[in-house]
């Protein structure tokens, strides 16, 4: 059966189009599946991580998906190859230098942080201080901490990075766990809650979708929201049928018609004068010696 992979830019409609494909594929019995890219005008990180995740899900069901490269435009093919996604999906193709694509089945923090530091940030054209670099990584780790805690370990976590321009970097991380709306509904002892309400709840400081609360937690999304606000970047969290966005103001939440079966966190960060103000604020935040910690 042939599926037309949709144009995958960084828009909500791209996520919804991908959700449509996902719902149709997951509802099928075991039939051969071909992805046709003739209607795909762009293949950005959100499309790449979801394509890789879909292929892995299909393989786990015993279906070998066929990616019809001949249907890709030159631009889509370039993205597919340069991102490192092709190397991930195909065995025996020449390796791509400087890949910004990765798949982690387990939480290997040193390897992921090395990737963020040495490849995603290190090979970008952006210049930044060590403090700022570490601040980026510290905040981005919260995405991975959530993904590994709530994700499906059989599928793992998919990452794709991209440099948008001389001042902006993009990172997209996807997991295929039960998702925020499901976990939030369980936590609130409901059978189902709308996507916008689930995402709004998850963005609230101190709330957590973890199944047990033996210790305080629930700061990850709140920390990211604040960091993106200071940085002037953008944060999108798509989780099943909910979408939350932070960009230059209070977070906005929307319910989506279809569920992708995934949680995708996409963050774009700026490296311009605003980041240096952030660095100064951080340096001034150290209290005088002797200040009580608790």
């Amino acid at each position, binding site marked *: 059966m042939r599926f037309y992979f949709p144009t995958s830019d960084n828009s909500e409609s791209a996520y919804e189009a991908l959700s449509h494909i996902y719902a149709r594929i997951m509802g099928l019995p075991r039939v051969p599946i071909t992805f046709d890219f003739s209607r795909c005008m762009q293949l950005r990180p959100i499309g790449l991580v979801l394509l890789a995740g879909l292929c892995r899900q299909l393989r786990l069901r015993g279906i070998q998906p066929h990616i019809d490269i001949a249907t890709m435009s030159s631009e889509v093919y370039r993205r597919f190859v340069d991102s490192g996604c092709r190397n991930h999906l195909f065995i025996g193709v020449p390796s791509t230098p400087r890949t910004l694509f990765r798949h982690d089945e387990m939480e290997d923090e040193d390897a992921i942080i090395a990737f963020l530091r040495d490849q995603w940030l290190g090979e970008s054209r952006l210049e930044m201080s060590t*403090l700022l670099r*570490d601040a980026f990584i510290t905040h981005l780790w919260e995405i991975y901490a959530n993904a590994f805690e709530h994700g499906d370990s059989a599928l793992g976590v998919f990452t794709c990075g991209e440099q948008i321009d001389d001042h902006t970097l993009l990172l997209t991380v996807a997991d295929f766990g039960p998702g925020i709306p499901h976990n939030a509904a369980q936590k609130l002892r409901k059978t189902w809650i709308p996507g916008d309400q689930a995402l709004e709840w998850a963005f609230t400081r101190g709330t957590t979708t973890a199944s047990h609360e033996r210790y305080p937690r629930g700061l990850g999304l709140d920390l990211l929201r604040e960091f993106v606000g200071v940085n002037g970047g953008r944060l999108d969290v798509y989780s099943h049928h909910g979408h939350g966005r932070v960009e230059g103001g209070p977070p906005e939440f929307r319910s989506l018609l279809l569920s992708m079966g995934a949680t995708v966190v996409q963050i774009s960060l700026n490296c311009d004068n605003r980041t240096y103000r952030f660095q100064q604020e*951080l340096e001034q935040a150290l209290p005088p010696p002797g200040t009580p910690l608790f």
Partner: protein
Amino acid sequence: MRIPVSEISGRNAVSSKAGEALYQEILRRIDVETVELDFAGVEIFSTPFFNLAIGRLLQRMPSDLLNQRLQVLNLSPLGFSTLRRVIDNAKRHYSGTSN
């Protein structure tokens, strides 16, 4: 007693496993002596790490006693900012004001 945190976590103090290991180290000592956590060599921090290692100490001991018994050394501005947030959240959590 000084605990070199980097010997437990490496340069990335982010995993729950490392947070749990540090918490157990602290627990072994804090009832009988002052504990100094030395963060020299640690570059990256996470809220899950601090939640497990330090935040939940508030469940066992009151703030004023923790201020006497637990000190942090060589913690970078980034680490301090992350820890500050974790402690504030833990206080809300254990006082029953979190969600």
